[in-house]
């Protein structure tokens, strides 16, 4: 019975369409479809014009009229490209609102300001020299139905698709379709796909973009995306450039061969902007970037380019983000400042509470994350940063050069140098959760740096840095979490204010003396305070450290690349693998790796009770931490007890910048 109903239903549907009686009016390559049921009285005037539903045709321009059974969808326009020709089909109910011009396969459709319904424009077909220009003052939808459009002649605009409409424009690459847009080389367009208003991408089709003049996609207002796949194949400017805010909930964006930033979101109106986040982003103009899902991949190569840049804040709560930058530094002659690339850069705060971020920067001075204000990491965020460039410095006249020696960098004012730091935040850093892994290998390559304070309350942090592992200009406070920090040429953890260790597990490996594992700014009256948590440190602690709430011991007799077990009393806290030992270095040229001084570097341990150590242990089961350098909750067998001495903090220094 169900089958019969289904068949009958389909039959009904089919004949319903077939029975749609339509008056067709053909004018050039434009066909107007008037449903017979809507036409009413159609008036002729003076033998020169015919008025059908308010659309006034000049009779001499009508090629033909006929009646058939063509189905008509109200409020719709179809634009079908075929080489150098375009067939435009317009639903009768909106015909009177549209002024259509054509030149070959270049189509211009101007909506009158009287339009009060949303018109859907469906673009399909292929043209080697075509474009679509549309203007209006009412929201609209543009569907892309296997459209391949290359603009060569720039008749109405150099953009392949140009929507001169300040309202909401839905862009729908229709499900299962692949659409390709290329703009005119000789145009002056702001984007291959230009939308003056706000763009909402939807549907599970694919859109490929090549921007030959400036950006790939430019929207004058906000940009949102769900489901769609957008591939920016190459651009002269940004891959995507939008204003107000950018919001990605799902879908896939891939940016390749972009000439400037991958994604840039600006405040539309700096005078009246900075509205702050609004409910449902209504009338929001913040320059913020929001990503809660989907896949964002960017490969940017320009000097000082950003994979993703917000003039406002950046909020990432989900999704897969992979960004690679390979450009070097530039000299900003206007602001007299050296600048370098960054995978993610926010002029405001950066809040990462979810998602997987894989950030790689290979150019000189290139960074993984940078923000002018606070960075907060929490929840399930997984952040992996690798920088491999050297530092770039500028002379007083702006001549750039590459520096591979960290100590040389100290001679330069901060505006004249860019270091390849993993995470550089001008505001506070607050880590409440998540997993962070940072690796740097170039001069000045600090792993994580805050220009204010740094607080870790929870989370997993693994830093292998060329310079300081973790650095803060202000106080550094560790309340919890699991932290591994290695500074190959500098301190493992360096607070230029006070450092407070109150909880968590820290495994810190500093470079050879005078660098230390945990450094506070004693030179300016600051101090290292240890009141809780667990510490494993290769290298000294800051001189004059105030240690309470537990016991601190050390040994200088330890073996490199060996597994040790740390106990708090009789309780196993963790097993860890020691670093390889290296030869000693000098103050200005520290040893090639941590754990140096030819074996005299201390192995320091602190627990809340009494720490004991076993060397050469075997570990099974448990959970790996810090990239396999530690194990917690495992089973330890074998090994020998290590004789530990009470750690006595000497007064003041070293522990350098």
């Amino acid at each position, binding site marked *: *019975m169900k089958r*019969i*109903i289904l068949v*009958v239903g389909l*039959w*009904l549907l089919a*004949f*319903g369409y*077939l*029975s*749609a*009686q339509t*008056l067709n009016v053909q004018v050039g390559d434009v066909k107007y479809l008037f449903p*017979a*049921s809507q*036409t*009413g*009285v*159609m*008036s*002729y005037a*003076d*033998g*020169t014009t015919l008025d059908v539903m308010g659309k006034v045709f000049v*009779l*001499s321009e*009508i*090629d*033909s*009229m*006929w*009646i058939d059974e063509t189905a008509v969808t109200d409020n719709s326009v179809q634009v079908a490209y075929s080489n150098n020709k375009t067939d435009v089909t317009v639903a009768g109910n909106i015909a009177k609102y549209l002024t259509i011009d054509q030149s070959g396969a270049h189509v211009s459709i101007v909506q009158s300001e009287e339009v009060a319904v949303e018109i859907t424009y469906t673009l399909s077909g292929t043209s080697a020299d075509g474009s679509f220009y549309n203007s209006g003052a009412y929201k609209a939808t543009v569907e892309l139905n296997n459209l391949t459009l290359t603009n060569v002649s720039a008749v109405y605009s150099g953009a392949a698709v140009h929507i001169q409409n300040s309202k909401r424009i839905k862009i729908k690459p229709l499900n299962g379709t692949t659409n390709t847009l290329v703009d005119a080389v000789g145009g002056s367009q702001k984007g291959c796909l230009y939308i003056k208003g706000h763009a909402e991408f939807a549907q599970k089709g694919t859109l490929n973009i090549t921007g030959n003049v400036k950006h790939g996609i430019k929207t004058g207002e906000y940009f949102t995306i769900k489901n769609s796949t957008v591939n920016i194949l190459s651009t002269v400017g940004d891959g995507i450039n939008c204003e107000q805010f950018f919001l990605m909930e799902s879908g896939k964006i891939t940016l390749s061969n972009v000439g400037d930033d991958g994604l840039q979101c600006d405040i539309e109106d700096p005078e009246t902007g900075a509205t702050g986040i609004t409910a449902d982003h209504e009338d929001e103009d913040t320059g913020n970037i929001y990503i809660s899902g989907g896949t964002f991949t960017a490969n940017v190569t320009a000097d000082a380019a950003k994979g993703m840049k917000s003039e406002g804040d950046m909020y990432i709560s989900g999704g897969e983000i992979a960004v690679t930058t390979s450009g070097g530094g530039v000299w900003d002659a206007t602001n007299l400042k050296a600048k370098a690339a960054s995978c993610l850069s926010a002029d405001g705060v950066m809040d990462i509470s979810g998602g997987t971020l894989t950030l790689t920067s290979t150019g000189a001075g290139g960074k993984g994350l940078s923000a002018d204000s606070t960075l907060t990491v929490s929840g399930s965020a997984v952040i992996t940063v690798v920088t491999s460039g050297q530092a770039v410095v500028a002379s007083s006249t702006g001549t750039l050069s590459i520096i591979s020696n960290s100590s040389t960098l100290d001679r330069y004012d901060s505006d004249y140098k860019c270091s390849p730091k993993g995470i550089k935040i001008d505001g506070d850093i607050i880590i409440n959760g998540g997993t962070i892994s940072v690796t740097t290998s170039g001069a000045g390559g600090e792993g994580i740096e805050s220009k204010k304070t740094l607080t870790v309350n929870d989370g997993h942090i693994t830093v292998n840095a060329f310079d300081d592992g973790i650095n803060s200009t202000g106080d550094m406070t560790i309340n919890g979490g699991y932290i591994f920090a290695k500074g190959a040429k500098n301190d493992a953890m360096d607070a230029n204010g006070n450092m407070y260790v109150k909880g968590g597990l820290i495994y810190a490996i500093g470079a050879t003396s005078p660098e230390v594992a945990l450094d506070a700014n004693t030179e300016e009256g600051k101090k290292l305070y240890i009141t809780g948590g667990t510490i494993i440190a290769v290298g000294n602690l800051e001189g004059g450290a105030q240690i309470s709430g537990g016991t601190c011991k050390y040994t200088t007799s330890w073996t490199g690349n060996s597994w040790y077990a740390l106990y708090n009393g009789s309780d196993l806290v963790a097993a860890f693998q020691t670093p390889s030992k290296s030869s000693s270095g000098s103050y200005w040229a520290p040893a090639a790796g941590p754990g140096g001084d030819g074996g005299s570097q201390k192995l320091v341990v602190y627990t809340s009770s009494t720490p004991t150590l076993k060397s050469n242990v075997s570990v099974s089961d448990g959970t790996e931490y810090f990239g396999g350098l530690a194990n917690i909750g495992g089973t330890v067998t074998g090994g020998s007890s290590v004789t530990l001495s009470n750690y006595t903090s000497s007064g003041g220094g070293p522990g350098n910048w």
Partner: protein
Amino acid sequence: MKKIVVLLAVVWCTWTAQAGDYAYLVFTNTIGSATVLNVTGLTMNVEGTSLQVTNTTEHVSLALADLASMQFSNDPTAIENVLDGDKPLDVFTPLGLKIGRYDNLLQAAGSLPAGAYVISNGRVTQKIVVK
């Protein structure tokens, strides 16, 4: 089986109702005369000062200067917008000679040979063309 028959009947009725939308296109000129053409296969082309209208059975040429309007209709007399076709009316030749009185427009259209006529209900007078 009975359900299937009922369903098919509904389908047929629906289809015929939809397919029956507007059987005619009615052209009215500036002096009120109407030209009625079946819409099946109907095409219209502007040729100089005339509108060439063709359907599957006939062809007419209408002077553009004389055309006032056109309208889809299901009434072959195509004057429902002027006269109430269900009420009695008088039929005259174009010269004003009364031919007769009919109960309604359908009866008149079915009785009259092809040609142009003037019909009146006493208040409204309208020219028609019977094909």
